[in-house]
């Protein structure tokens, strides 16, 4: 974020914090002990903030540092909580520029301050010597403080993303897709702030050390998840490429259909889980082609009925391979029906209109588009505008017009990676002559 708007935004957050600090109630006498406690909480914050867990393939990272700020709210009050949040400026992260640091610091301070003010406003007792006979009373004010903290934090981050979205720094709207999970995690670990505070009354600063252990365990699990997820998609990609080596011209096809399907899914507002599922389905949609004999795929001239039937079987073959993967059933239906046509003349089932599952209607559009914009042995690649015209022509007969519209809108926003012109392969025997996905050159079948 380097734009003037972003700087203005940071300035506003800093100003708001400064204005509020003046009106915040002073709660704890400033003594040597106060400074000791403040510094230890700041250290706790810094340790958490400097070791964030990566969230899967998103640009956001997550750290449980809110626990330190909220402990400061209970132990020291609103202004010290702001001071704890503000050390985010110093967080030991590489690749963080000055503007990012300033924003993080201002955000930490403001959310700490607001949380503290909410806590005090609801009669939360700051720096209690103990929780007395009925400790339940503290949960209400504390929960309000935690909610304010989490919401301020996420709200401010959301603002930054909104500012950046116009500049297309984020392709996948990282924030919004994982937001519910982030909010819940934040709230869960915010509760740890109260635990730190209560242990603090018993054992002093050692409480911070004790709480670090579960925090790091949680971070470990999140990191492992992200790592496994990355390994998983990398392996999927490699295996799909292995499938595509059988056919020179269709290399990268699965990858691009996956991309296109994902674009459409996000455009029509699908949730994260379904978007992930359709991306996998797009990648694997042609896996069943392996079950089609190579001679049939490479045949020039019209096909016999039997050969055409063999090609028409490939979605079923694909289903056979991926059926046991713990996929959403929708993804399986997408693979099975990606060659159905809206007018009912497709295969394998001859479904029409909305009988065709939504996933299949989406994959069909992305599939045809990539086929048309790639080079084939019998023709050059079409330009993107030409292929779009072709899609529009096919809307209502071959494609779902709504999906075509969504794809065109997504295309305008995000662009399309046109595959480089494929160099002539030395070994011509590995070339598919007819592309079964190409809507401009349908397979010819010998009529009996």
């Amino acid at each position, binding site marked *: 974020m380097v734009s003037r708007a972003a700087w203005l935004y940071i300035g506003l957050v800093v100003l708001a914090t400064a204005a509020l600090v003046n009106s915040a109630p002073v709660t704890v006498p400033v003594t040597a002990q106060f400074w000791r406690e403040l510094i230890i909480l700041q250290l706790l914050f810094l340790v958490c903030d400097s070791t964030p867990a990566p969230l899967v393939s998103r640009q956001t990272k997550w750290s449980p540092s809110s626990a330190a700020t909220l402990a400061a709210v209970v132990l020291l009050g609103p202004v010290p909580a702001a001071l704890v949040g503000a050390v985010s400026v110093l967080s030991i992260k590489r690749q963080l520029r000055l503007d990012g640091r300033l924003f993080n610091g201002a955000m930490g301070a403001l959310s700490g301050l607001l949380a503290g003010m909410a806590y005090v406003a609801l009669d939360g007792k700051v720096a209690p010597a103990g929780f007395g006979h009925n400790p339940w009373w503290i949960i209400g004010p504390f929960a309000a403080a935690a909610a304010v903290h989490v919401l301020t934090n996420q709200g401010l981050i959301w603002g930054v993303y909104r500012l950046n979205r116009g500049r297309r720094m984020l392709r996948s709207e990282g924030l919004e897709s994982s937001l519910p999970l982030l909010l819940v995690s934040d709230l869960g670990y915010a509760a740890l702030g109260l*635990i730190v505070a209560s242990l603090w009354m018993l054992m002093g600063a050692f409480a911070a050390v004790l709480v670090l*252990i*579960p925090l790091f365990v949680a971070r470990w699990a999140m990191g492992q998840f992200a790592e*496994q997820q990355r390994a998983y998609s990398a392996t999927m990609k490699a*295996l799909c490429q292995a499938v595509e*080596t059988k056919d020179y011209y269709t290399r990268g096809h699965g990858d691009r259909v996956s991309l296109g399907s994902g674009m459409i899914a996000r455009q029509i507002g699908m949730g994260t889980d379904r978007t992930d599922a359709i991306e996998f389905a797009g990648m694997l949609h042609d896996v069943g082609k392996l079950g089609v004999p190579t001679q049939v795929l490479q045949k020039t001239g019209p096909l016999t009925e039997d050969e055409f039937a063999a090609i028409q079987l490939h979605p079923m073959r694909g289903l056979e391979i991926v059926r046991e*993967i713990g996929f959403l059933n929708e993804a399986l239906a997408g693979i099975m029906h990606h060659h159905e046509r809206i007018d009912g003349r497709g295969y394998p089932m001859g479904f029409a209109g909305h009988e065709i599952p939504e996933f299949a209607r989406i994959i069909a559009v992305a599939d045809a588009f990539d086929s048309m914009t790639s080079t084939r042995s019998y023709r050059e690649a079409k330009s993107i505008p030409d292929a779009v015209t072709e899609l529009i022509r096919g809307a209502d007969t071959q494609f779902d017009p709504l999906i075509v519209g969504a794809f065109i809108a997504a295309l305008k926003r995000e662009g399309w990676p046109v595959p480089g012109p494929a160099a002539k392969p030395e070994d011509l025997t590995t070339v598919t002559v007819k592309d079964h996905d190409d809507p401009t050159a349908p397979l010819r079948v010998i009529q009996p």
Partner: protein
Amino acid sequence: MTSPSAADRWSSWQALDSGRLLLMSTAAMLVLAAFATATIEVRVSHVAMKVALSFGGFIALGELLRLALPGGREAAPIALVGGMSYAMLTRVNDVPMTGSPRLASAALLVIAVAAIGMMVGALPHIAAGRPAGLTGMCTRLVAIACVAFLFRTVGAGLVHDHSWKMMLAVITPLVLLGWLADTIVGALIRADDVGARFSVAISDEIRVQWALGAGVCASVIIVVLGAQVMGLAELAVFLGPLLVTQVAFRRYAGIRATYLQTVRSLARVTEVAGYVEAGHSRRVSRLAVAVGRELGMPERDLLQVEYAALMHDIGQLSLRDPIPGGATVLVSAADQERIAELGADVIRQAGVLEEVADLVRRQSWPATGHEPPPPLGSMIIRAANTFDDLVGASTDRERSAAALDRMRLDPSQYASRVVTALAEVAGRRLAWRL
């Protein structure tokens, strides 16, 4: 790891091996003793009753939210935290928790509460048709009982003064002991189940569980000490981070399982494409894992072997024409090497499976005379592949014996200890199918 198919699985009464039986009877005796004492001797105060109900509920919730860990394990970390911290609770919100006249019966009260909590938590599992997870519950109960007896008879005497340092010094070793008991009993049962060596099973178990274990141990300490200040409210608040952490673990275990499942399915492309016989890659991987386990390989290496075995034929996709029957054992050594190299190239492209690619690449190397010698995993895959190429899905004893003989006669190609282990595994497999 591979789970045995329905045909390989014994009926449930046969699966009650001696280790499991011992564990269950121990747990049953503890529970009986606990209930007997609790009903006769213990006169609990109003506060102690509330505490018992809260911790019982906590344990029930933990049992309800069990966690699947890598390798088909099941854990209930929240239930374990609840049980162990209840075992070592001395004061709740400055009210002392002695509970009963005799110390041993205080421990038995803990066991009774934990047992009831676990049973209540298991009920929804049973109602939903899932396994009750009796073994896991017994394991946890025994671990909780260890902690409770040790703390109530020895530890509690040491912590009468209000010093938190003394408290910490007493409960830290005890909670570690409790976790270790849970892990070791779990490893014992698992070693029996999968046929692994006990020493290997223990180190595997610790490797899988250490992170969760550290979290459990720290959580117990936090609950016990925090309850002194905040009372039962602390239990409710601490549930937040515990649940979120559990979700993180669940997602981690889930993606690992999906990963394995996906590789298993995609490895079948060679079968659908007609390059190899149906079921080949899965049979080879199952065999290779069993042989690896027989030879005492740790779980981490077994996972690599499993991936490599599943994908060992992926290089054939680059061949223009399928080998007849897909039996790589029938083609020349040079061709075998080429297929292995091509397959390794495919796997290496993923960028995350270097070791697996290496196993696949070296699967065609002879056992002796090659510099450097092939790794054990590659030798196992080679032997398992040859065996399946020659025997296939057949359960014919003579065919299997002939294949093994052929490999025994060729010690330069097949390492003799691998063939011996393979014979052992194949023999067991035939016995199961009778």
